[in-house]
């Protein structure tokens, strides 16, 4: 940093250095994550061999499977072999699904990505204005309402909220599609007519111009995304409120008001722009949390996502799957961090060095 103030570097070089820095961070983070996950996986009192061979296996069959899994090697050797393979893009096979972990993740992650993205859009679109409104009228009924909604969001079990949502909007009113990503009939249309590109049904069906599938997928995603979005909204609105309260007590705000600037401009343009930097961190964190996959939401909505996948794998000591999932989650975190860094620089001139 200090260097760059002295020497005028080309933007290209700067970008290259940033990308390099990012890659180093990514590598260190992932290696650390892998090491921790690996050790946890080996000390849990679950026998991965039994998960494969089942109860009736003879000792010979058990030993053969153990050998095939490479569990006879010393711990460190096992880890090094794993990392070596991972570097070559081979994350091994999942014990549970018998599929390469990478293809499993390519199947489950888009479902989670699609859901979390829409949930985050909900959360931001509602949470930020709600937080701003509450901050501009502290103590008013608006403020109380936002706080109440936020409190409810924090304290209601998501499992329960999801079920009630299904009961009301799917069961009774019939406004939305049921659990799962598509209706049964559309499932076939989708598999026959739409070539998977991203694995995200909304995007794939739109690319293929299959609008009926798109509409059906939308009716299915809206409720789980709404439920998840509600939680992210609760968090985002609360944080927005406190950032804004702080910002609105600053002197420049008073100055602006004294100068007779319209109140909406003071709040929505001047103050909001200044809170947007910490807000981006909050939003990125909340998004990253959703991307880990929400086990409970995925269970209730029969949503075949990353959360269910990792949890199932963990309970069966399917460590290849757990570590593959962990790498994805870790990489997502680092990536989102990087994106929010870039956004800072776009918004805040002081961060551009």
């Amino acid at each position: 940093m200090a260097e760059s103030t002295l020497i005028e570097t080309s933007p290209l070089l700067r970008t290259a250095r940033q990308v390099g820095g990012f890659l180093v961070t990514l590598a260190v983070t992932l290696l650390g994550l892998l090491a921790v996950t690996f050790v946890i996986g080996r000390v849990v009192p679950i026998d991965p061999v039994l998960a494969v061979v089942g109860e009736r296996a003879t000792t010979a069959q058990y030993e053969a499977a153990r050998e095939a899994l490479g569990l006879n090697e010393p711990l460190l050797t096992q880890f090094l072999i794993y990392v070596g393979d991972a570097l070559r893009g081979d994350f091994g096979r999942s014990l549970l699904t018998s599929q390469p972990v990478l293809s499993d993740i390519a199947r489950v992650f888009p479902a989670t990505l699609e859901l979390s993205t829409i949930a985050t859009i909900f959360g931001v679109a509602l949470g930020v204005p709600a937080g701003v409104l509450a901050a501009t009228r502290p103590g008013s009924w608006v403020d109380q309402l936002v706080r109440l909604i936020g409190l409810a969001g924090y304290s209601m079990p998501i499992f329960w909220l999801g079920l009630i949502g299904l009961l009301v909007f799917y069961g009774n009113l019939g406004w939305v599609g049921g659990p799962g990503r598509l209706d049964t009939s559309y499932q076939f249309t989708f598999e026959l007519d739409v070539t998977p590109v991203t694995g995200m049904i909304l995007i794939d069906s739109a690319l293929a111009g299959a609008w009926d599938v798109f509409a059906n997928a939308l009716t299915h995603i809206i409720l789980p995304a709404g439920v998840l979005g509600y939680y992210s909204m609760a968090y985002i609105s609360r944080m927005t409120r406190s950032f804004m309260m702080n910002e609105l007590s600053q002197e420049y705000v008073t100055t602006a008001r004294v100068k007779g600037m319209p109140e909406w401009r003071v709040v929505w343009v001047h103050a909001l722009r200044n809170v947007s930097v910490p807000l981006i961190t909050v939003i990125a964190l909340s998004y990253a949390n959703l991307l880990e996959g929400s086990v409970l939401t995925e269970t209730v909505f029969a949503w075949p996502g990353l959360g269910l996948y990792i949890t199932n794998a963990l309970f069966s000591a399917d460590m290849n799957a757990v570590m593959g999932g962990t790498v994805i989650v870790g990489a997502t975190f680092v990536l989102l961090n990087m994106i929010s860094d870039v956004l800072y620089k776009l918004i805040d001139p002081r961060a551009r060095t």
Partner: protein
Amino acid sequence: MIFNPLLRKAGPAVMAALLLGAAPQAMMAETPADTLVIADAIDDIVSLDPAEAFEWSGSDLLNNTYDTLVELDPSNLGPLVPGLAESWELADDGVTYTFKMRSDAKFASGNPVTAEDAAWSLQRAVKLDKTPSFILTQFGFTPENVEEKITAEGDTLTIVTDQPYAPSFFYNCLTATIGSIVDKQTAMEHETDGDMGYEWLKTNTAGSGAYYLRTYKPADSYVLEAKEEYWRGTPAMKRVFVRHVPEPATERLLLEKGDIDIARKLTPVDIEGIGGNEDLKVEDTEKGQIMYLALNQKVEPLADPKVIEAIKYLVDYEGMASTFLKGQYEVHQAFLPNGFLGALSDTPYSLDVEKAKALLAEAGVSDLSLTLTVRNNQDRMEMAQSLQNTLGQAGINVELKVGTGKEVLGEYRAREHQIALEGWGPDYPDPHTNADTFARNPDNSDEAQLTGLLAWRTAWAVPKDIQDEVDAAVLEKDSDTRAEMYLDIQRKHQAQSPFIPMFQVIQQNALRANVEGFNAGGSIHSAFYWSVTK
């Protein structure tokens, strides 16, 4: 990527349609007339290779995509009916079985099913030596000798066993999943490193059944497509779509809305909840799983016959079955589940605290403290709590030790439990499967490592008379006599063994009222989809 301008218009239009137009449509959801949609928990599937598959939902899938030589009839489970073999006989020597193959059966690939395929499939299962291979190898086949023992010539398959076993025992074993006949040519086209197509068949099918597997997404869903020509006649349901729905309450909603035809994992609460709904019906099936207690004979007080008998009187069988287990378990106190040849349905034990106290006093035992190991699922936890309570009434202090399935199993196989609350499902539809594991233990030493046998796991040195009778029963030619022998074995086992069978599982499948002909397979088989109409 070119941004389609339609997309921009579609967004609001879809929202509007959602709120107005589409709403009534969504309320009358119905599955397509020629498609059967089932919600189940299918995350137990590890492999779809018939030589390896050994899980409940995997067996359901394979039962509809493969055929076996002899089969069971879904409308009348019990007597064997012709499968890929149109006739079969046992020679006078008691060890040479011949099967005449039917000529009109084809695999999904279009290849005809031949005796050669049949021989190869059974040889393959023995050679691959995966967990269920014992179902075949118990007839004396080894990877080395199997090519001599199982041979094909023309349309005839010949199998030679090492001993003159009860023919019913042999035929019953051939109806198990491992007896599935695989399309040799297709499997070998996908062979890698001499694995006889094993890697490929883990996630694909190559059978002659009514359906073939079109898509399989592990722990998500699978789609079966009916074959154009099936030797039994093309099934009414052209497609079967099985969805993984882990949450029972969600499953119930889907069924009530008509988005699925069959829900297979509802809880008693859900079953009760749909009771008044005329669009739905519930079909109960006794399944083969037995819930039992295993008293480790390495734990000193538990080796005392009086203590064992006392604990048999300290289980509130009726109380549990009529309250929290209602509808899902029935009292059953013998190791063979109802539905099996020679199953014993007597229930001599009931909760009798006074009698148990007297027995404990006779044994000179007081202030007993024991651990009860249990898996962390709701039914089992509730059973364990009831046991903790009733054993406590007789002064036995029980500490619950809760673990995941894999943890508990590890402890049990290592013979480190005190009392284990466990479930056992038969491996193949013959009484020997349970007799073998509950009532045989050729070597009770730790070194023997007979981890597949429950009697060994709980360190019970099975009395010689019981063990001899089990060995004799697998050789008995006459089925009625054989059934009598199993009844006798179970009576002795019930009185003497450190096992306390308590319940048999009842599976409650909830169906849309228009679904007919679904059979979940009873206690001896897996689900049949091809017989369904709606």
